[in-house]
């Protein structure tokens, strides 16, 4: 193959406007953190993700001891043992303390959820452990290229999932306890019952073909939800224990005895948390005694005193309250495999404490700023240890702790406050991926607040995401009215995870005799249910009558259509898609039911209204709102563009036949398939010697109307799909007997799901990444500018769905200066006023990203927005990096 030629660079950079030349333009606004946090951030940069076996060891040991105990109490005891035995670790310079494990970027596997990975990899892991010591030191340097990811084993450190470092000597213990969960984990037990679902065979094939990305019940059963900090802030831990004691008296011996066990479990758990906090207090005291610097010593003693206090009592100050929030955030994360646990509208939750401290003169703006920076570091240090494909393939290592600002108060007034301005400020000076920010845009928000948000966007970290308050409220009122959600409660919403609209409630925080209504989550995990269906892959199966043409395996039964009209294609697509949703709904319901029985949530349940009132955990509909299961999709824009091309080329203009289309899809338009070259990035596609044969058809596919250009032809197809999708979801019932709804976020799935999908009728090549988000155009196909893109994106009502997602890349010069900021805000407002649900921006010169691919060491701190989350560039996979580079850049006009 002498004609091997990669696509030229000009194809990869997609510009709207004048292509930038000269020096790479850096982002306009650059700031740095306070001296204290600059040090802790450096410490973070030099730290690798590390997993420990401590918690799972103690958990499993206690679990084993209590065979025969009531499951929820047994679990509480096991969790308590885990918490009690976490080695406390306090890191220098911290003002907020406590982490998931005793490493700075610590986490641990939870084999009770799924032990299959460890069992399957047992031999390899032993081998790895033996080989690790032989890796020469010069190889260590290459690991740095992945940022904090431990991408390969070295010395006494084993690489788990290409991300976590794990001590060699802990490996036998991990494998030992993993074995104990064989046939007992949620995964194993669930799997057994899933097989009773008619159509289970198809489910297996759907998973194998990667039409669906993963099983939510075995991977991340919780998350994509909003925390509620009300109870600990109002009552303190001892206070909540007292509530439990009262409730125990009221329920013991009465019908509905599950309540008794729930209260017992919560009480037990809280004891575990108390030991955990006190252990950290002890450790801090010890560190104080060893410290010679008087200032540091005092700081340590203050931290110790605060922890001792919070182990029993409600917070006295803003600093106390922030520490309390953090303790419970980590406590929930340690309870389950969770990604997307969002602090929600934290600036409004903490405002009463902050305001009181400021008025009393206990706190200054500078001190607040420093504390908020410290909080950013703690959130950024969080790692999520989930099953392997999930950490890389879906999450890109991100933990999605979304902090929301703005929105409305209970009474419908602007909820923006001064503390939120400081949150924005600290997110600019201490630019880290977590917590990511979302601004709940409402026409009532003050202009100065919005402009502050624009200023922060200019930093280039991708946050805040701009999210439409009114659209979200409409969605919530539509979907939760049966559970009694009214307009006041609709205002308490927040984003859970990267972009999931989540129902909230107003809780009456009493402070000095005044009641402040603070918002917090009151629904369990969302984005559980049917997880990421690859729409282009379903269409592929339609064209090939139910086969996964890549592997040759049959996924669906033959649809029986001859595909002689566009209508037949559309019908067959709807049938396959419905079949997919049906079988995945049923199997996922089983997974979550088993999860609720073996591994129920205790701390998170306690926090969520009204579990503590009702005496029911979240798996028993203890929460106020329970319609949280959804159907997630990926690659919608590629589906719609492909349908448009088929409609136009095959059926209307008859440029080529359906058979020819199938041939070019198999022939990959004359390019060598990515699975052969192993290069899945848009930049690395190579032509075969006979690519000229397919040139004309490829052009016809590429020239067919594309979404994102305000072209009615294709936008009508998009609209039809959206309307049908949002309605069909309601035909399926969740475990909690609530209808499903549609959810449209790609996270990082558009990379791996694209990788297994053949070429598509829109001209996309085999194995390459899909369009990101849900209303972002496919890179380079939005040729008529942002206004046309906005018009296409808003061609349907976004409130039909839990979300929509639009990612844009803008060259820094476009929004430069004061006038640039004002015009940028006008652009954002215009989109949201038209009914767009969400827009977020990468403010970056594409050439900088290209340079960062070549020289990762120069760009350790560079962050980009992917799809609903911000991540360090160096910690992203190459597929996703290339997709971000290829996105159309709105350059200077």
């Amino acid at each position, binding site marked *: 193959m002498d004609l091997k030629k990669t696509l*030229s660079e*000009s*194809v990869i950079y997609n510009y*709207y*406007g*004048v*292509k930038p*030349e000269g020096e790479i333009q850096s982002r306009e606004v650059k700031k740095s953190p306070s001296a204290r946090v600059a040090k802790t951030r450096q410490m973070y940069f030099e730290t690798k993700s590390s997993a420990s076996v401590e918690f799972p060891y103690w958990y499993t040991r206690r679990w084993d001891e209590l065979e025969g105990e009531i499951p929820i109490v047994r679990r509480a005891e096991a969790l308590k043992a885990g918490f009690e035995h976490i080695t406390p670790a306090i890191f220098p310079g911290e003002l907020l303390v406590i982490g998931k494990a005793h490493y700075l970027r610590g986490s641990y596997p939870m084999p009770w959820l799924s032990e299959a990975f460890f069992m399957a990899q047992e031999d390899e892991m032993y081998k790895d452990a033996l080989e690790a010591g032989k890796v020469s030191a010069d190889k260590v340097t290459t690991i740095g290229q992945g940022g904090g990811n431990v991408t390969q084993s070295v010395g006494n450190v084993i690489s788990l999932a290409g991300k976590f470092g794990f001590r060699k000597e802990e490996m036998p213990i991990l494998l030992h306890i993993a074995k104990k969960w064989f046939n007992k984990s949620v995964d194993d037990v669930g799997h057994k019952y899933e097989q009773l679902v008619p159509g289970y065979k198809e489910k297996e094939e759907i998973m194998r073909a990667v039409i669906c990305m993963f099983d939510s019940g075995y991977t991340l059963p919780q998350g994509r939800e909003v925390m509620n900090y009300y109870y600990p802030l109002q009552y303190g831990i001892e206070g909540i224990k007292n509530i439990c004691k009262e409730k125990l008296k009221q329920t013991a011996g009465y019908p509905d005895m599950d309540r008794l066990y729930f209260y017992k479990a919560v009480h037990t758990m809280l004891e575990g948390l108390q030991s955990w906090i006190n252990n950290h207090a002890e450790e801090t005291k010890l560190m104080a005694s060893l410290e010679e610097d008087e200032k540091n010593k005092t700081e340590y003693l203050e931290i110790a005193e605060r922890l001792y206090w919070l182990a029993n009592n409600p917070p006295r100050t803003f600093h106390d309250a922030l520490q309390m929030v953090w303790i419970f955030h980590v406590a929930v994360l340690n309870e389950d495999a969770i990604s997307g646990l969002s602090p929600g509208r934290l600036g409004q939750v903490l405002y009463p404490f902050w305001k009181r401290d400021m008025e009393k003169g206990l706190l200054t703006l500078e001190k607040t700023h420093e504390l908020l920076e410290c909080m950013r570091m703690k959130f950024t240090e969080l790692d999520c240890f989930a099953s392997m494909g999930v950490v890389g393939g879906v999450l890109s290592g991100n933990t999605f702790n979304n902090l929301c600002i703005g929105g409305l108060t209970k009474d419908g007034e602007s909820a923006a406050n001064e503390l939120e301005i400081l949150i924005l400020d600290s997110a600019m000076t201490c630019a880290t991926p977590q917590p990511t920010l979302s601004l709940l845009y409402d026409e009532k928000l003050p202009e100065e607040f919005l402009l502050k948000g624009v200023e922060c966007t200019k930093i280039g970290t991708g946050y805040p995401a701009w999210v439409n308050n009114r659209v979200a409220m409409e969605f919530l009122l539509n979907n939760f009215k049966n559970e009694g959600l009214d307009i006041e409660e609709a205002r308490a919403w927040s984003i859970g995870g990267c972009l999931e609209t989540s129902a909230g409630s107003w809780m009456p925080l009493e402070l000095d005799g005044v009641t402040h209504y603070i918002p917090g989550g009151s629904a369990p995990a969302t984005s559980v249910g049917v997880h990421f269906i690859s729409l282009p892959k379903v269409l592929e199966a339609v064209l090939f009558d139910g086969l996964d043409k890549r592997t040759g395996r049959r996924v669906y039964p033959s649809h029986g259509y001859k595909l002689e009209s566009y209508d037949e294609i559309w019908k067959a697509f709807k049938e396959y898609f419905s079949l997919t949703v049906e079988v995945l709904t049923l199997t996922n319901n089983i997974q979550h039911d088993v999860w609720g029985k073996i591994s129920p949530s205790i701390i998170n349940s306690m926090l969520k209204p009204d579990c503590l009132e009702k005496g029911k955990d979240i798996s028993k509909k203890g929460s106020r709102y329970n319609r949280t299961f959804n159907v997630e999709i990926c690659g919608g824009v590629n589906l719609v563009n492909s349908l448009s091309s088929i409609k136009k080329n095959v059926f209307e203009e008859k440029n080529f036949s359906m058979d020819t289309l199938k041939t070019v899809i198999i022939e990959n338009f004359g390019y060598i398939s990515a699975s052969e070259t192993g290069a899945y990035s848009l930049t690395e596609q190579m032509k075969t010697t006979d690519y*000229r044969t397919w*040139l*004309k058809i*490829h*052009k016809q596919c*590429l020239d067919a109307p594309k979404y994102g250009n*305000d072209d009615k032809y294709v936008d009508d197809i998009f609209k039809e799909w959206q309307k049908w999708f949002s309605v069909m979801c309601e035909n399926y019932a969740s475990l909690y007997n609530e209808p499903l709804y549609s959810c449209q976020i790609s996270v990082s799935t558009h990379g791996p799901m694209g990788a297994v999908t053949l070429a598509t009728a829109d001209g996309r090549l085999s194995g390459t990444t899909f369009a990101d988000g849900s209303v972002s155009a496919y890179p380079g196909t939005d040729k*008529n*500018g*942002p*206004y*046309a893109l*906005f*018009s296409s994106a808003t061609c349907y009502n976004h409130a039909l769905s839990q979300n929509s997602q639009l990612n844009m890349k803008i060259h820094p010069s*476009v*929004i*430069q*200066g004061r*006038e*640039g900021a004002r*015009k940028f*805000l*006008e*652009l954002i*407002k*215009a*989109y949201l*006023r*038209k009914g767009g649900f969400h827009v977020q921006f990468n403010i970056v010169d594409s050439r900088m990203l290209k340079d960062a691919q070549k020289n990762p060491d120069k760009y350790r701190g560079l962050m980009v927005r992917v799809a609903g989350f911000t991540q360090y560039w160096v910690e992203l996979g190459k597929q996703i990096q290339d997709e971000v580079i290829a996105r159309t850049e*709105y350059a*200077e*006009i």
Partner: protein
Amino acid sequence: MEINQHSGTIFDIQGFSVHDGPGARTLIFFKGCSLSCFWCSNPEGISKSNIPLYYSAKCIGCGNCKTSCPNKAIQFIDEKPVIDRDICEKCPENTCIDNCYTDALRMSGRTISVDELFSIIQRDRQYWGKKGGITLTGGEPLTQVDFARDILEKCYNAYIHTAIETCGHVPWKNFKKVIDYLDWIFFDLKHIDPKQHKIGTGSSNANIINNIRKLNETFKGKLVFRLPFIPGYNSSKENLEGIASLISESKWKEINILPLHHLGREKYQLLGLEYKAACFPTPSSEDLKNVKAVFEEFGVTCFISQDTPF
């Protein structure tokens, strides 16, 4: 609604333009120019007809363009097409473009009706924000004056802020047709010396200066002068003072300096033309500071580059 049959030729519509008038705007690039400045950054806009752009990096030398051309305008030299653009100018067909499967040939320019253009503007206006509007640019919009008038009139009556960027080198009657529907004029000046003007742009400036005087008497909207600043061509103190003096005699006292840039260079390659401004340096910030000083001496407020008077 009354159907408007007028149509014109444009080569681009760009939304979210932030540098050519107040607010975020939609720019409409008209084809055809009455001048041909050697530094022009939109050379595809000079010719009034649709013309093919040739992207050599995408060309695989298949020869489809040559075989499909009904007018034999394309020859192959070293396996690459060489286009006789004099023939292309007059060709109404699109065959070479349609038969280029790699998009190495793309047409610059298209015919659009007033109604179609107006519907795009109506769409865009929802995104402009508080200020914003349209700016006709090009090319020289007033070379298609009836089309320009129709679109400006429609916009003006629909409460849309209207602006035009003109080189001024058109008959006065063309201005007369549009000034009632204009809120804003960007008026380009290049050189005060008629001979030098002709060298740089292909025409003398007599007509242009005449039009400024007439506009001064009749145009009630806002006018901002613009000077493409080309060091070595129009950068002499003498020339700057001449322009400043001309402006100071008018009722408008603002000038926007557009420093030479070479961002349009690539387009010359696409058109098979030589880029004659390549040897001219882009101005230093020191140069620009001096320019500002000259204008301010004459009481003319001077805005450099993106530092605009709006």
